[in-house]
């Protein structure tokens, strides 16, 4: 070992010690804790509509006084379970798909309500092309609403067919009732058939039976059972609800609007459809004279 060896060892040792106390080689305390990963998932909102029972309305008869057809449907909340999800269901309206000529929404009357223990809460049908939007109620996932629709055809509607599409909207509401958020839509269809009622035959065979000057005239025409008749003077009905059994009919000036009148005969069938005669009675009570032409 040379004389310089101890000196070199000392220098190296001093540098190593110095390095341990300066710069980034400090060994300071440190501790760490872990927060586990976490997450949430969102749900979804939807609903479906099914027709209860027969999937057809049957035949609508455009006859006055005819009871409307009632269609029962169920709106099912098909949303998966979600803690704070509620859905307000609204009847959004109707549409007519593939109607045959002559059929339009304006010829239908409808109303919407809820199924009840004893029937349907819907009011009397109103025009379908009006505002039919109806709030039906609120559901939770898996819940349902029983809905009913009253449908009728306006008097005089022709024979026709089509498919009625009933549309329902869903709008999210919070459990406290506050609205806003998701929306959903669903619809269902039902075939529609309208069987129109034919017009009654125009009254014919008009004839004068007898007349008494200044007092009366007795007239008749060919009648059809089930059809009611009226005498019309210048567009105004003077004598109504004349049946076959009342013919021949004796009329007086005060009943028909004067001493010199022209009267048409109007036939009306049970559906309320009317047809006027092409011929006219001309009665001149003071002449006296009665003719039909």
């Amino acid at each position, binding site marked *: 070992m040379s004389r310089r060896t101890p000196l070199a060892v000392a220098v190296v040792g001093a540098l190593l010690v110095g390095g341990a106390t300066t710069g980034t080689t400090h060994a300071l*305390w440190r501790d760490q804790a872990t*927060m586990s*990963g976490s997450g*949430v998932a969102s*749900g*979804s909102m939807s609903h479906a509509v099914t027709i209860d029972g027969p999937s057809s309305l049957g035949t609508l008869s455009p006859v006055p006084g005819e009871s409307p057809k009632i269609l029962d449907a169920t709106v099912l909340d098909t949303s998966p379970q979600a803690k704070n999800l509620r859905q307000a269901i609204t009847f959004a309206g109707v549409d007519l798909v593939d109607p045959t000529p002559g059929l339009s929404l304006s010829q239908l009357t409808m109303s919407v309500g809820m199924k009840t223990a004893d029937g349907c809460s819907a009011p009397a049908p109103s025009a379908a092309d009006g505002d039919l939007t109806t709030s039906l109620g609120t559901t939770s996932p898996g819940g349902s609403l029983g809905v009913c629709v009253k449908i009728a055809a306006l008097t005089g509607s022709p024979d026709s067919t089509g498919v009625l599409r009933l549309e329902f909207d869903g709008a999210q509401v919070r459990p406290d009732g506050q609205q806003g958020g998701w929306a959903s839509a669903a619809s269902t269809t039902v075939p529609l058939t309208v069987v129109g009622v034919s017009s009654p035959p125009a009254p014919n065979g008009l004839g004068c039976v007898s007349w008494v000057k200044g007092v009366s005239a007795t007239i008749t025409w060919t009648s059809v059972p089930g059809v009611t008749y009226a005498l019309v003077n210048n567009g105004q009905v003077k004598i109504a609800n004349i049946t076959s059994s009342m013919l021949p009919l004796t009329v007086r000036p005060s009943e028909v609007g004067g001493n010199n009148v022209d009267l048409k005969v109007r036939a009306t069938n049970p559906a309320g459809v009317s047809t006027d005669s092409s011929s006219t009675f001309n009665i001149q009570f003071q002449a006296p004279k009665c003719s039909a032409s």
Partner: protein
Amino acid sequence: MNKMIKGSVAGATGIVLLMGGFGTYALWSDSADMEASKVTSGELDIAAGDVHWNDLSTQGTDDWDPNNSNHLVVPGDTITRTQTFAVKGTGKNLEGTVTFAPGAETNNAIGVDVDVTSDNAEVTETAAGSNNFAFDAPFSTGTMKVVVTYTLPQSTDGQVGQNVTASIAESTLTIAQTR
């Protein structure tokens, strides 16, 4: 007795006499006690605490269960995951930091927000909303609170944001000495 024997006896006697004379010296002495002493090291520690899930939209407590398949968020929901972390920092010359390293976030339509707070005034946030803290003195004990907030705004309309997930991966909270 010959001369040799007599000489040996006399020598031995002399040695004994010399040895017996040692204990009889009277020399000065003194002593003092040094009291026992010690130092104790400080502590720097962080430990994860309980986790609570709350459905803020219903003002409930612990009323959200992430393991319940029926607990899916819908527009208007605000869900929080709150976890506390107990921290200790003792030692006269202790200075250091508490830093939050968030895991990767997946949010889709659901917003994810993380907020870290300290209940100890000595442990202060380095910048508002940074979720990083520092202390320049020992603070004894404190609680760090990490709140992860998941929000699906009620303005989310149509069919937006349905059947999606939002998450934050494993994250770490580190307390480290700087001096």
